[in-house]
């Protein structure tokens, strides 16, 4: 019994020394983790707070991302809700860049929404947490141009994104603008560009864009 007590005291003492030795390091890592998390109040809700406190931030952001994709796909969703959902994703993972690309352009560029203010807000938040991301600046530039009706600047911004990033929604916007320009000017260069993007859209992730691409390619077959 006495032997066991002495053993417990010695081992316990060793444990305390180890914990004291690493405590300042653990505090530093903790501080660093705190600093890298989302610092605003937007997106705060019982669900996001629970996810954050229980250590499921990334899983929570993935689930909210799926929700966002499905909601946008259903087409009967209000812009406010898309913005809200995007804020919730940011609250959990502010470095999740696709959230800003997708949500920012959807609320700004889909005709039924056309909320450029929301688009700016979402994309600016993205820029705040991801200042080194080169595409987010182009997205912002494109939305800014769209809000002013500056089609040429919009095309420059969005086409530079499409050189490296796969974004079917954006591709659809660019193809549509080129088609409209062709209809107005009858300049074949424009429709060739539109066909180029529809061709790429044939293997889009969303069925809607696949169908649209096939329909348009069929319509403008002679330029294909």
């Amino acid at each position, binding site marked *: 019994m006495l032997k066991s007590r002495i053993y417990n005291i010695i081992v316990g003492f060793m444990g305390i020394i180890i914990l004291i030795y690493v405590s300042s390091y653990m505090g530093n890592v903790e501080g660093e*983790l705190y600093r890298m998390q989302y610092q605003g109040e937007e997106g705060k809700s019982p669900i996001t707070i629970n996810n954050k406190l229980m250590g499921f931030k990334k899983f929570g952001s993935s689930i909210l991302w799926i929700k966002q994709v499905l909601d946008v796909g259903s087409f009967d969703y209000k812009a406010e809700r898309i913005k809200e959902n995007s804020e919730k994703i940011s609250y959990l993972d502010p470095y999740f860049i*696709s959230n800003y690309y997708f949500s920012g352009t959807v609320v700004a560029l889909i005709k039924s929404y056309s909320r450029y203010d929301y688009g700016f807000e979402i994309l600016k938040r993205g820029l705040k947490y991801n200042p080194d991301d080169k595409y987010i600046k182009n997205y912002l530039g494109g939305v800014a141009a769209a809000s002013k009706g500056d089609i040429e600047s919009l095309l420059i911004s969005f086409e530079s994104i499409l050189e490296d990033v796969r974004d079917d929604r954006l591709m659809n916007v660019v193809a549509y603008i080129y088609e409209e320009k062709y209809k107005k000017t009858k300049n074949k260069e424009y429709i060739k560009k539109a066909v180029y993007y529809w061709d790429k859209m044939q293997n889009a992730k969303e069925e809607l864009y696949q169908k649209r691409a096939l329909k348009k390619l069929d319509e403008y077959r002679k330029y294909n």
Partner: protein
Amino acid sequence: MKQIIAIAKFTIKENISNRLFNAFIGFGLFIIMSTVFLKEISLYEESKVIYDSGLFLIEFFVLLITIFTSATLVLKETKEKSIYLVLTKPVTRNMYILGKVLGLIVTVFLNIAIMGGILYGILVWQKAQISLEYMYSLIFIFYKLSLVVVIGVLFSVISDSVITANMFTFSIYILGHAIYELKMLADKIENIVVKSILEFLYRILPNFRVLNYKDYLKHIDIDFGKISLYVLGYLIITMVIINIVFNRKKI
């Protein structure tokens, strides 16, 4: 040492032959494999969704198994009276507990290894980019759940009810993640009693926030050795407390 290893081996065998335990594992594996279907609805972010959901599910299911097996450990054996058979042999209470905890920790390791291996296979199949961070995430899940094992066993020794032991262990798991918020709350509160309680909790609760590598939002360089030492130190102290309580417990 022989006795400890024998008890550990028996604990592993006992867990593997437990029906409920196997049902949890089977269901966990099924759900992890089902994450592949999320691919269809996760537009451009298939890998992220499968990766994050998979790691979450591994931790969640192994956590359920861990809490269930550790928090009921001593209580179940006392109720079934099987504990007397072991303690009448030349096995001290310290050896008994150490053997049991070792067996549970190895079981947790095996579970994480199996589920982690399957998720790895799924990620490779989905052509996702997998870095060393995946390995770190699994190791840190193992660290976290090893601490849950000793905390569960501690409550199993202290408590007289399986339900309260399970609830307390789960509460510690949640509080361990919100540890920094407890500290911040303590800094803001002026009431000295509440402040002291919160600071005390901050000092004694396991730091699951730092051990939650799968949820690190950005890459940071970590000292793997120091974090491993933290886990070791915490395990040692909790084991000593368990031994002290268990030695005084009337069975």
